[in-house]
């Protein structure tokens, strides 16, 4: 039934879309054979998606001039991948430190959450001004479709 599939969403990076996009992702992934009933994992993946979207909303563009975000959601044979593409300022992922746990700040937990809950995280600022954050989680595939894929 389930096969590999990719959904691509182009939208303004507006906070107003946060919950509707989250709802979409949650409804989608909870149907995946590897995730049926896996409440904790579904929560984690929704949270990661939420953090990545919030970051584009908050950091990619100057505040009064929200640009666009292109989101890719890929259901692979044994993984789930989120891609967030913006044409904003970009940043240096490697240069972002872990949160200061001894002196907790208001901000700075988003990337920590993404790094810890996902198996792969990669960020690339391309020459053409497009920045892409790629987040991947491997899932134990269960169900018949591995063979069909």
């Amino acid at each position, binding site marked *: 039934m389930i096969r590999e599939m990719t959904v691509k969403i182009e939208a303004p990076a507006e906070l107003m879309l*946060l919950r509707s996009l989250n709802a979409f992702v949650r409804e989608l992934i909870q149907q995946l054979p590897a995730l049926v009933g896996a409440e904790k994992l579904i*929560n984690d993946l*929704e949270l990661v998606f939420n953090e990545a979207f*919030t970051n584009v909303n*908050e950091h990619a563009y100057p505040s009064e001039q929200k640009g666009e975000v292109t989101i890719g959601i890929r259901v692979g044979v044994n993984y789930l991948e989120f891609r967030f593409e913006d044409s904003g300022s970009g940043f240096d992922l490697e240069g972002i430190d872990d949160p200061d746990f001894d002196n907790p700040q*208001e*901000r700075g*937990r988003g990337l920590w959450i993404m790094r810890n809950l996902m198996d792969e995280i990669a960020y690339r600022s391309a020459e053409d001004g497009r920045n892409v954050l790629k987040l991947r989680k491997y899932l134990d595939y269960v169900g018949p479709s591995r063979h069909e894929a």
Partner: protein
Amino acid sequence: MQVERKNGIAVVATEERLDALVAPDLKETVRKLVEETGLTKIVIDLEKTKFIDSSGCGALVASLRVLMKNSGDMKIARPTAQAKSLFELTRLHRVFEIFEDLDVALSSFSGK
């Protein structure tokens, strides 16, 4: 967000989602409580909050700071499984005083 007073303590009950959409409201609510009513003992009741994210955590950290600066304190009551697991991931379970029971959270102030 709902605010109730119980014996000089404000109980702030957050909604189903505590994300970037409402994190500013929480900070503002706590700031106003302190500035306008002088209440500096606050319990954040997370019972209804099925989803909290880094923005929600940030609003809680900011609220705790404001309260401590005003010689008050903040307790967290009834976190859902999702909230507990996020507090652990972000090590905030060592920063916040967390109670499974709302009444215990409330009475934890009286020792001070």
